[in-house]
């Protein structure tokens, strides 16, 4: 009795090298990608193009775009780099939500068609590539570097910081500048001059760093209508952030600081109010 049981166990272990009944080995499944196309020298306005892309369950949307570019339409333009959600290049609207293409998988979207558009609220340069110049200027405008509270010379040694002090700014330091938060923010959509969640996250990364003494300089930059006061606490920026930076926290804690500064500044000097 025992021997036949062993034999059937042996038989069960001996599987063929290639399982021809596995899903991947049948006729390749395809998925439709509807991509918003725009070429300024040819088109007056963006319009959707459709592609049938063969795919496997491990493919990301980025890989599907690369498949299109390699085999179906070499003129498709899109940004990408690391393929692993750390460079922030491949942000785009996937089925109406701001997402990183390398971090969004076809298996979760199939079998329905996938709609791909460039990031909302940004001018389109071409296809899925948007203009980022203003975003860079906003980052530059908030003193994105440590301005030491108590400067030390090299001989005096390094600036020391406890782990608890680092926790105060840690999440804000994780920002990869992917701009998904700007795509989600309706106030940025309404007012392109709004400094926005990403720049505010970077601001708070420095202002809440224990080594930094530039808090007032940064508050002076965000005290206007286009600064922190365009935010209405929608909170979607933090929901779409792929790195859990929590930019909503960065913006809204600066409302209290800016409000306090509003009153304290009158004690310091006479400035005109808009």
């Amino acid at each position, binding site marked *: 009795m025992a021997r036949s049981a062993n034999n059937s166990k042996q038989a069960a272990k001996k599987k063929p090298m290639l399982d021809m009944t596995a899903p991947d080995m049948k006729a390749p499944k395809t998925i439709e990608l509807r991509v918003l196309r*725009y*070429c*300024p*020298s040819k088109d007056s*306005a*963006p319009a959707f193009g459709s592609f049938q892309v063969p795919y496997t369950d491990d493919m990301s949307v980025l890989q599907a775009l690369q498949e299109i570019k390699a085999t179906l339409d070499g003129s498709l333009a899109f940004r990408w780099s690391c393929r692993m959600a750390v460079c922030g290049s491949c942000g785009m609207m996937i089925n109406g939500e701001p997402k990183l293409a390398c971090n969004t998988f076809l298996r979760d979207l199939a079998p329905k068609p996938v709609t791909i558009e460039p990031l*909302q*609220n*940004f*001018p*389109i*340069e*071409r296809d899925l590539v948007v*203009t980022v110049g203003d975003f860079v200027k906003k980052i530059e405008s908030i003193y994105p570097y440590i301005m030491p509270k108590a400067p030390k010379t090299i001989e005096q040694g390094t600036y020391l910081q406890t*782990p*608890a*002090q680092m*926790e*105060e*700014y840690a*999440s804000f330091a994780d920002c990869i500048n992917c701009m998904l938060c700007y795509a*989600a923010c*309706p106030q940025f*959509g*309404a007012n392109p001059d709004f400094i926005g969640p990403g720049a505010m996250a970077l601001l708070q990364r420095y202002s*809440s760093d224990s080594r930094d003494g530039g808090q007032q300089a940064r508050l002076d930059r965000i005290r206007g209508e286009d600064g922190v006061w365009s935010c*209405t*606490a*929608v*909170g*979607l920026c*933090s*929901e779409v952030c792929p790195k859990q930076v*929590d930019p*909503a*926290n960065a913006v*809204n*804690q600066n*409302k*209290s600081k800016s409000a306090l500064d509003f009153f304290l500044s009158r004690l310091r000097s006479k400035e005109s109010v808009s």
Partner: protein
Amino acid sequence: MSESRPYLRAQPRHWWAHQPYRAYTIRELSGVALAIYAAILLAGLVCLARGPDAFEAFRHFLASPVSLLIHLLLLAAAIWHMWTWFQILPKTMPKLVWRGKLIRQDVMSRTATLAAVACSIALLALFVVVGANI
């Protein structure tokens, strides 16, 4: 080199009515309910200033089914306001570190909501005490 002619898609006029923004719009409109309640209080104040007859008419309205329905709707809106208020509250605070670890935002929200419920209960208790002693 092809020309550069950036194309900005206009923000949809009714963005606030569609997901994912609808919840935010509803949350903000709960403020209108609070204004309606304040208006009822102000109306009571007007009637109080006009004299006992006017105020009795106000009390008579308060005891009507219409007023009860309105207040129940206002109560629902006030509870929704309270709930969403404390969901946002942690966003307005700096990162708090306790014993080396960040205090989580959902913990802050829950604690604050419980504190608020306690405040409302305390106020009701005050009303009971005052009511027993007048």
